[in-house]
């Protein structure tokens, strides 16, 4: 079969469109967002444990790690990260607890903040994973593929909130060089990826809605609607927003009566592992991308230079040959 020029372009376009997303707008910012209204959160004080935390644990229980023991330390270090004997711990993020509620006292008032992955628009964890184990899904959620995660914990190091948590003794690294490379598998909230792909809401959102009805702390929906609602409420009620600008924007917005500067100060004073800094720059956007533009443009300039230099040198050689004759 002869491939015509037109046919070539049609075929190329088909291949390209198959690898590029159908709807470009979903690829960067994501389709959905969550609003977490901490003005409404009481930490489920009359419940044995917060409903969002319980729902998350029930929903994801089948995916929790079951490490192979004894666990080998991360040579040459003598340590390893093992949370398997702290499965019931709910006051922090662990491989067995992907959402938790922080409790703070600010100016005599109690504040409860549900914390989990922010699902950044341009997530450093996804862009930085050397094994492609993390992906940013069109729905807006960042997802860890536990089958190819080596547990190097780079995603945690580059995350402004240090969200992903590692469990040793599980994952692909056990089949390669478990003593020398890898460290387990990283775990974090993926916004109940299977549920939202089916058009359902994440388990934490559903559980909170069941308890508080229209006064639910969590609201999940189309990103545009959530952003508009959060901004409108912030304007009307004099609330503070967190998550719209931090790290270049995220799919999780917090609303609070107390400023996030004060909240972060309180978190620092309390020596919490998970803070809420107001100034969070996205290094991909602020540092890497400007250099990336130089990489691309200098590559083009180099090609132009090569073409010009080759033509000139060939022309000179030709001239030289003719003169020699």
């Amino acid at each position, binding site marked *: 079969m002869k491939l015509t020029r037109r046919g070539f372009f049609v075929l190329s376009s088909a291949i390209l469109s198959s*690898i590029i997303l159908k709807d470009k707008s979903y690829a*960067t910012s994501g389709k959905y967002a969550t609003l977490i209204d901490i003005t409404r959160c009481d930490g489920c004080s009359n419940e044995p444990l917060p409903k969002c935390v319980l729902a998350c644990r029930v929903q994801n229980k089948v995916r929790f790690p079951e490490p192979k023991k004894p666990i080998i330390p991360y040579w040459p270090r003598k340590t390893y990260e093992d949370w398997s004997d702290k499965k019931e711990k709910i006051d922090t993020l662990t491989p067995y607890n992907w959402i938790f509620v922080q409790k703070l006292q600010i100016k005599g008032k109690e504040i409860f903040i549900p914390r989990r992955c922010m699902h950044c628009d341009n997530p450093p964890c996804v862009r930085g994973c050397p094994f492609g184990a993390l992906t940013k899904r069109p729905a807006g959620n960042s997802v860890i593929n536990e089958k190819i995660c080596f547990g190097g914990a780079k995603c945690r190091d580059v995350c402004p909130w240090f969200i992903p948590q590692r469990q040793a003794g599980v994952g692909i690294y056990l089949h390669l060089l478990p003593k020398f490379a890898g460290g387990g598998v990283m775990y974090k909230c993926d916004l109940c990826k299977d549920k939202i792909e089916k058009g359902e809401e994440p388990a934490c959102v559903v559980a909170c809605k069941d308890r508080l009805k229209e006064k639910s702390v969590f609201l999940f929906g189309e990103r545009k609607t959530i952003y508009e609602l959060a901004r409108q409420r912030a304007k009307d009620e004099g609330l503070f927003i967190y998550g719209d600008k931090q790290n270049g924007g995220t799919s999780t917005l917090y609303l609070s009566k107390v400023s996030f500067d004060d909240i972060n100060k309180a978190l620092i004073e309390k020596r919490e592992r998970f803070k809420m800094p107001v100034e969070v720059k996205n290094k991909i956007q602020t540092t*890497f991308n400007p*250099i990336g533009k*130089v*990489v*691309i443009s*200098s590559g083009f300039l180099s090609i132009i230079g*090569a073409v010009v230099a080759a033509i000139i040198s060939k022309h000179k050689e030709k001239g030289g040959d003719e003169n020699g004759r």
Partner: protein
Amino acid sequence: MAGKIKRHSIIEILEHWILAISGIILIFTGLGCLPLFKRYYIAEIPGLAWTGDFNTVTTVHYIASIFFVMAVSFHIFYHGIRGEFGLLPKRGDFGQSIKVLSAMFGIGEEPPSDKYLPEQRLAYVGMGIVIVVITLTGIIKVLKNLEWIVLSPNVESINTVIHTLSGFVFMIAFVIHVGIVICFKSNWPLLKSMFTGWIDEDYVKQRHSLWYKKIKNEISEMEK
């Protein structure tokens, strides 16, 4: 230059060393992009604390890639347009390479060679393919981060894995390349020529006899 033959132009020397130096930096910072340097105490060596910070390591990786991409692009287009394909493999290069490598270990005699040894031509293509793969996947990563192209999650993942794995292959190929040059005395004049551009006529006569014949034929043609 008496008793010397020009082997490399200044352009080739620059291409080689820009690629080599940026390549070394890219390998080192590429390893630093893996979570290795902190774990293996590299970041605790005085002066290397920066290698424990992924953002700094990635920044240096990006800067080095400017020079790497420039050298690769220039090399392909400059020599492609000039029709300089002497480093591309020829029929029978595989068998000849075995003979050349055996001779380096003192087994048998080295066959007569053209300007480049047959194993150099094979290595060039192997290294070339790896470099092109690394460069293209790296550029895709840059374009994707810039959001100038949008990839599906799976394609983004596959591209990342290919970039990381081809980085390992490049590192191994780099070590073999440097090892073969340094470990075998017969290759030292070639290393020298990579700095000066010139090579001893006697060396060419003995090791690159086919090339030497061509040069002599060209000279006698010009004199006619």
